């Protein structure tokens, strides 16, 4: 009896300290549970793995975005970095560079772009919002110049395509990579000095400095990681299709950066910094991916789908703000 109480208490404590995450999990479970009402085809292995693969890109980018948000910053250039990395990897593959080298080079490109963002923020004393808005526009422009505005595709070897389109068992490789990165991200944030220092910097920069934390170094690293995660996602997309295609002006929903920010914040992070978890970001991405997927099954007008997604984001941020208020 006592044992059981202790267990319940612990669960209660966990739910209490992770309210956003718990609520999201509940919501996702409910949606999946009632999905058969809408369509018997929804809850199939094929569709669930599809769903996970569909969200894997956003989820991966969200981890990097979460880091920048945790230190009180933001990275609006992730979508553009994905594009640039996608283009680079296809161009390199076209030039017969070995696949392993392509992977290394494009991940370095992502980190280099992140380093540029970080340097401008740290040494230029600039607001992350404005820096990454500027670099976003510039990276888009460069991608355009290099690709000459055209889609590019090469004779990608199977080993390259395998990264994006392959499976282990029936699990798509991007899904596996996503879960590995979520795991690593959680460990780094929860259990390493670097993770604690990220929360500290986001919570109070001056105090972090006075605690012996190299605040600038942390910031640079975080933006490099954000670039790296965007690069991983960009690589996975490119390797999925073996081709690069510029994203044309969207039909309403924002680009990858806004999806990732929404996922992170819906997952309980605060844009003020110092608060948020990798699990929350994943759940945020999962929720919107799930709804997006489900709405196709519901056969709703696509514009209503966008409306519903916007409304869900709004409801989620209002909810987590109301939690903050009570504290």
């Amino acid at each position: 009896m006592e044992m059981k109480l202790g267990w319940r208490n612990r669960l209660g404590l966990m739910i209490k300290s992770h309210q956003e995450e718990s609520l999201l999990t509940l919501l996702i479970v409910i949606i999946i549970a009632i999905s058969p009402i809408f369509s018997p085809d929804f809850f199939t292995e094929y569709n669930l793995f599809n769903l996970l693969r569909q969200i894997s890109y956003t989820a991966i980018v969200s981890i990097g975005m979460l880091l920048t948000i945790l230190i009180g910053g933001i990275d609006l250039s992730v979508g553009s970095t994905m594009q640039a990395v996608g283009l680079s990897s296809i161009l390199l593959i076209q030039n017969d560079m070995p696949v392993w080298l392509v992977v290394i080079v494009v991940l370095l490109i992502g980190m280099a772009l992140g380093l540029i963002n970080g340097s401008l923020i740290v040494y230029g004393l600039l607001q992350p919002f404005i820096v990454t808005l500027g670099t976003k526009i510039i990276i888009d422009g460069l991608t355009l110049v290099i690709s000459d505005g055209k889609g590019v595709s090469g004779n990608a070897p199977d080993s390259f395509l395998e990264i994006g389109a392959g499976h282990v068992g029936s699990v798509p490789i991007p899904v596996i990579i996503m879960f590995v990165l979520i795991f690593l991200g959680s460990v780094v944030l929860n259990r390493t000095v670097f993770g604690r220092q990220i929360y500290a910097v986001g919570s109070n920069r001056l105090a972090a400095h006075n605690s012996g934390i190299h605040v600038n170094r942390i910031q640079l690293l975080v933006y490099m990681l954000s670039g790296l995660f965007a690069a991983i996602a960009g690589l996975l997309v490119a390797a999925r299709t073996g081709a690069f295609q510029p994203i044309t002006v969207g039909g309403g929903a924002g680009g990858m950066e806004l999806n990732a920010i929404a996922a992170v914040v819906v997952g309980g992070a605060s844009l003020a910094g110092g608060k948020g978890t990798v699990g929350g970001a994943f759940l945020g991405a999962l929720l919107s991916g799930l709804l997006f997927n489900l709405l196709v099954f519901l056969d709703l007008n696509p514009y209503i789908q966008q409306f519903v997604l916007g409304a869900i984001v709004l409801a989620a941020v209002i909810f987590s703000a109301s939690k903050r208020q009570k504290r």
Partner: protein
Amino acid sequence: MNNVILELKGVSKKFGPAYANQNINVQLEQGEFHAIVGENGAGKSTLIKMLSGVHLPDEGEIIWKGKAVKLTSPHAAQSQGISTLFQEIQEIPALSVAENIFLGREPKSMGFMQWSDLFKEAEVLLRSLNIMIDPRTKMEDLRISERKMVEIARAVSIKAELIIMDEPSANLNEDELKILFDTIALLRRQNVTIVYISHRLREIFAMADRVTVLRDGKHIQTINIRDTNEAALVTSMIGRKLEEYYPAKTVESGDVLLDVKNLSLPDGELQNVSFQLRKREVVGLAGLAGSGQELVTKILFGLVKGFTGNIVLDGRSFVPHSPRQSMNAGISFVPEDRKTQGLFLNQSVKDNMSITALFKNFLTGGLINKSKELRKANSLIAQLSVRPQDPYKHVGNLSGGNQQKALIGRWLIDKYKILILEEPTRGVDVGAKMDIYQEINKLLEQDLAILMVSSELPELLGMCDRILVFSEGKMTAEFSRDEATEEKIMEYAFPR
């Protein structure tokens, strides 16, 4: 009594499950100077925040001039004639002094701002209080104490019948204190009622008519100042008798640990400062605010660069250039302003304490050992008597004194050679003060040396083996514990 201006009837305020104020019954008489005292977290600020419209009481009522009022906003309180000088500096840094003073009450005609009137009125107000600040200056270009003076001017300029001051004297130098006290005298001549919170009992005994004591959110007593004395008041505040305010030092100083020679900064901010610090020694740095003493400590902790001179630490030459490097050399640092410079307010007490020690103390196989970290945090909480005893509580929700203890706790995990304490007890109540002083003595037993910057002279006199006095960037005197008196220190602290 028929000259009661304000009455609190059974007022309570809760934060979460805990009462910050519980069933408070106080009457303020017209024109009196009413002091409120109590330990950190006793509920003083909460009480006056209900009077100034920041918080609404959960229970009870506030009777203002015979009528029950609901003070739903600071604006509502102001329009009733209640003006407040809050504990934390309240300012808009990017706006001018005049705009700050008249914010929300801008002079206007037909709805339009009258800029010239704004500056003129501000000028007149400041001069009438002997404050020599240009009303066109931006707040951010002023020193801390000057900013506090502007706030005082603002509080006065609201033609209020009740002025509430929450620790107004905490940041001020002697000159500025005089202006504050003159201003209070002026207000009293105008029959303005004053509610005054301070941890400096001397001020209270010098000025107050009556004093209200709060403890643990409860109203302990309200008494005429003539009918009490310091000892009795302190006993009533902390609920026990206070034997030894400054605990006797238990260890002898040892060898020279730190040898500073000819420390200087460009522009004469610091000129040829030389001193030594021994093991197990407490050295105090005294002086008016901004006289160079805090530059010395900031240089040592790697926060101020571009200095000349020699620093020898433990026999080795040492050129500090970053906090981390100073930490690795054995220097720890409790900054002056715990909220902006020290604490991670939205993080737990545990995380605040462990942050500097994670690397050396809590890593197992490269990962943080959370149970070890928790054990250490719990033991520090007990050792420093941090209240509440909850390692997961966000530091921002603790009272000032407990925040200070959590901050000091950060430096007690790893072993350091020197602890720099800036204003270690600013805004800290007597009980917590004693806890901190006792902790200082324990640290000395562990071979630590302490460099203490404080604007509270009694604290320096009570705790330090030696006191170095600074004035205008120069070290003007050095006194041993036996030689030092307040008068002598002040003599050398003032510019000549």
